[in-house]
């Protein structure tokens, strides 16, 4: 009964979406207030039906209703309740339901928080969001129905893939989807602006807070995925340039360019074409990412779906969305012209360079991700592109970007002089180089040129970002008051840019100075890695709620003193599931000690992987800074005080 209600609710959501995608759009074109007014209630109704449907699926999981195929494939009665809930989005069909639910939630948010925007514009935005929802709902109803019933329900379900029975991974898809799908809002704003011919600065101002929040969620989602891969996959790596990782990283890169381009468009009415195209590209990459993950074409850590018909559907949807939006852009291109000019040395140029570099970086990742698929599809051969390629190309493109981060923020809009910006930075530059080159030798104990360059860059980013605060308040008479009055947009930017400095520090130091060793070791023996001695006390059998395990005990000594006892495990979740390696980690701000069990290699001897990962937590700390920065910037007062009166006067000054 409940699953059928869930399915029916999805169909109702589809019907509402069909109305929402058409009538308000026509209404906006014909200036029909009644039809325009349909948009908001439709968004409410659609969200309601989607949430209800999601609730039905969750109910089925919580009550272990194994007559539903999806529940039987991904859950069983022994699973802890929290994982029964996260199993709802743990595999293909449920993951899609989550996607479309979050789309509904974003639509609802736009409907509620857009009272200050012109109704016709909101109607167009909601219509575009509804069109996307239609695509996904059709996909679900025709190829990926989570509510399919089993004629003979089994007494016990399979279980959720043990890899996913983990708190980090439980929250990772919702976070990621809030980001990915949130770019649909920026996309909808851009399309609505193109349709309405409204290419002045107001749409950029409206789009900014939404895009910043979506970007912040995506940042957190990616960081969660990286953190999870680190502690769960047992390999100690934090980024593998895996196609599925790249699928989420590419929208993030373009999203970053987008949030900066929106700033230029809002403040100076420039880079409009860039902003619109970046909005289209960001969402297209989100859809491409969905295609890559959901069509099973990839050999990677997460291959869920393996049905080719699904791939074709998504591919067609992708082509329709990208083709349609680019066609619309081409038609409206003549109207997207700005009269504002800027000099060679200006913040606009800084943002332009930012856009170009991020675009190039994205294209290199796209090439490396798609090339194997294309050559395989064309029968040319089975190639794989590994991390060395990505690192070799990505780092040289993003390093100059990092160097310019703080400097760009210091440049004035429209016209500035190189000398004015750099004069106060010359001495700090020398200091950064000196400290950067000293750090590897003095603090880490071993000099490498790569570490020196990395640390110099990180210090430079930190300095130029913090100097930005001084630049704003230094000349004021009451500096504390000036500090207090700095807008949130500025604080958001400063936090996020500072996060970049943390990130560069983390990746430089962890990749150069971490130690890793795979050892064959007998109970009672120990292994010395750097300053630490790992004493292996042996393995014994244990039990968990829905698994049995071999648990090891490893005592870690530093200079002879016991600092922690680690218990790595190898878990068996029963028939139908693969064994899971649970690494044991002693976390720290400056180093992680990490032990994972391999396989038995002989008489009382086991293979053990031992790591000393230095500064690795700085990477995820950086992501938190960035995400926080994005959210704080989105709550800037000027987004909340947009009055209808101002909008009307804006519309009167529309540039051709």
């Amino acid at each position, binding site marked *: 009964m409940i699953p059928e209600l869930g399915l029916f609710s999805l169909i109702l959501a589809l019907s509402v979406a069909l109305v929402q995608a058409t009538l308000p759009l026509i209404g906006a074109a014909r200036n029909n207030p009644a039809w325009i007014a349909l948009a908001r209630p439709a968004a409410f109704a659609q969200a309601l039906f989607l949430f209800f449907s999601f609730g039905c699926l969750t109910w089925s999981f919580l009550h272990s209703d194994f007559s539903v195929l999806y529940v039987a494939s991904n859950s069983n009665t022994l699973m802890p309740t929290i994982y029964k809930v996260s199993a709802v989005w743990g595999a293909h069909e449920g993951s899609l339901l989550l996607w479309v639910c979050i789309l509904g939630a974003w639509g609802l948010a736009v409907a509620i928080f857009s009272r200050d925007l012109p109704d016709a514009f909101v109607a167009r935005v909601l219509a575009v969001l509804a069109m996307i929802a239609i695509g996904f709902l059709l996909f679900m109803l025709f190829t990926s129905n989570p509510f399919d019933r089993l004629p003979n329900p089994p007494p016990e379900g399979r279980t959720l893939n043990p890899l996913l029975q983990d708190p980090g991974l439980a929250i990772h898809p919702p976070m990621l989807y809030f980001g990915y799908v949130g770019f649909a809002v920026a996309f909808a704003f851009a399309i609505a602006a193109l349709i309405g011919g409204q290419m002045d600065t107001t749409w950029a101002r409206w789009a900014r807070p939404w895009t910043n929040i979506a970007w912040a969620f995506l940042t957190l989602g990616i960081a969660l995925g990286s953190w999870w891969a680190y502690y769960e996959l047992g390999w100690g790596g934090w980024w593998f340039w895996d196609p599925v990782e790249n699928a989420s990283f590419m929208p993030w890169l373009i999203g970053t360019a987008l949030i900066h381009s929106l700033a230029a468009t809002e403040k100076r009415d420039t880079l409009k074409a860039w902003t619109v195209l970046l909005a289209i590209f960001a969402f297209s990459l989100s859809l491409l990412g969905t295609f890559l993950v959901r069509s099973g074409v990839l050999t990677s850590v997460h291959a869920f779906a393996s049905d080719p018909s699904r791939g074709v559907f998504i591919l067609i949807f992708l082509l329709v969305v990208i083709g349609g939006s680019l066609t619309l852009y081409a038609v409206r291109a003549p109207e997207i012209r700005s009269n504002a000019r800027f000099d060679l040395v200006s913040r606009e140029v800084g943002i332009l360079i930012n856009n170009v570099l991020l675009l190039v970086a994205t294209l290199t990742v796209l090439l490396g991700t798609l090339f194997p698929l294309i050559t395989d599809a064309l029968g040319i051969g089975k190639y794989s592109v590994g991390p*060395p390629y990505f690192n070799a190309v990505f780092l040289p493109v993003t390093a100059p970007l990092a160097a310019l981060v703080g400097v760009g923020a210091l440049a004035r809009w429209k016209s500035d002089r190189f000398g004015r910006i750099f004069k106060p930075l010359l001495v700090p530059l020398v200091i950064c180089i000196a400290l950067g080159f000293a750090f590897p030798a003095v603090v880490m104990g071993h000099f490498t040129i790569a570490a020196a360059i990395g640390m110099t860059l990180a210090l430079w980013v930190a300095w130029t970002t913090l100097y930005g605060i001084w630049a704003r308040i230094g000349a004021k008479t009451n500096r504390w008051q000036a500090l207090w009055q700095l807008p949130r947009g500025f604080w958001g930017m400063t936090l996020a840019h500072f996060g970049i400095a943390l990130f560069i520090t983390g990746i430089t130091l962890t990749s150069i100075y971490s130690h890793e060793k795979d050892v064959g070791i007998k109970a009672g023996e120990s292994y010395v890695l750097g300053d630490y001695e790992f004493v292996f006390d042996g393995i014994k059998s244990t039990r968990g709620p829905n698994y049995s395990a071999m648990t090891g005990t490893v005592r870690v000594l530093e200079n002879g003193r016991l600092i922690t006892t680690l218990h790595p495990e190898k878990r068996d979740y029963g028939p139908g599931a693969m064994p899971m390696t649970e690494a044991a980690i002693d976390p720290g701000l400056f180093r992680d000690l990490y032990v994972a069990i391999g396989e038995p290699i002989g008489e009382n001897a086991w293979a053990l992987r031992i790591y000393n990962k230095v500064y690795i937590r700085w990477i995820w700390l950086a992501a938190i800074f960035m995400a926080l920065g994005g959210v704080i910037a989105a709550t800037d007062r000027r987004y909340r005080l947009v009055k209808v009166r101002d909008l009307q006067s804006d519309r009167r000054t529309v540039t051709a």
Partner: protein
Amino acid sequence: MTPRRKRMLTVAVLLIGMSITAILLVSAFKQNLLYFYTPTQIANGEASIDKGIRVGGLVKEGSLKRTEGTLDIRFLVTDEVNDIPVKYSGILPDLFREGQGIVARGKMDADGVFIADEILAKHDENYMPPEAQDALDAAKTLK
């Protein structure tokens, strides 16, 4: 500088920048492309020696041998037509089992043994890496 000159300069800088990036890209790409071979292809001598490649197939039943007390192992990777010996030293992935599909990355040495740097097995015991499956299918059509 006249606006026209400025524009020409911008275009020139962009073109140079793009060319450098393109050259960087292509060379990094070519150096890091890994080609995948089936055991049959390797047996036929199609793979070059001492060059980074990938090979995939099933771990032949009964072929797994470990040097007692160490991390060194040997096994045969097969597409049911040809077998290739593989040497590896390190921790095996959880799903590694005789009769399971794997993909290994490494080099062929002069003695016809594949020295593996990395072994990949997939995270679902029913899942076979597409390349390994293709290797098996390709071999079946040969039989």
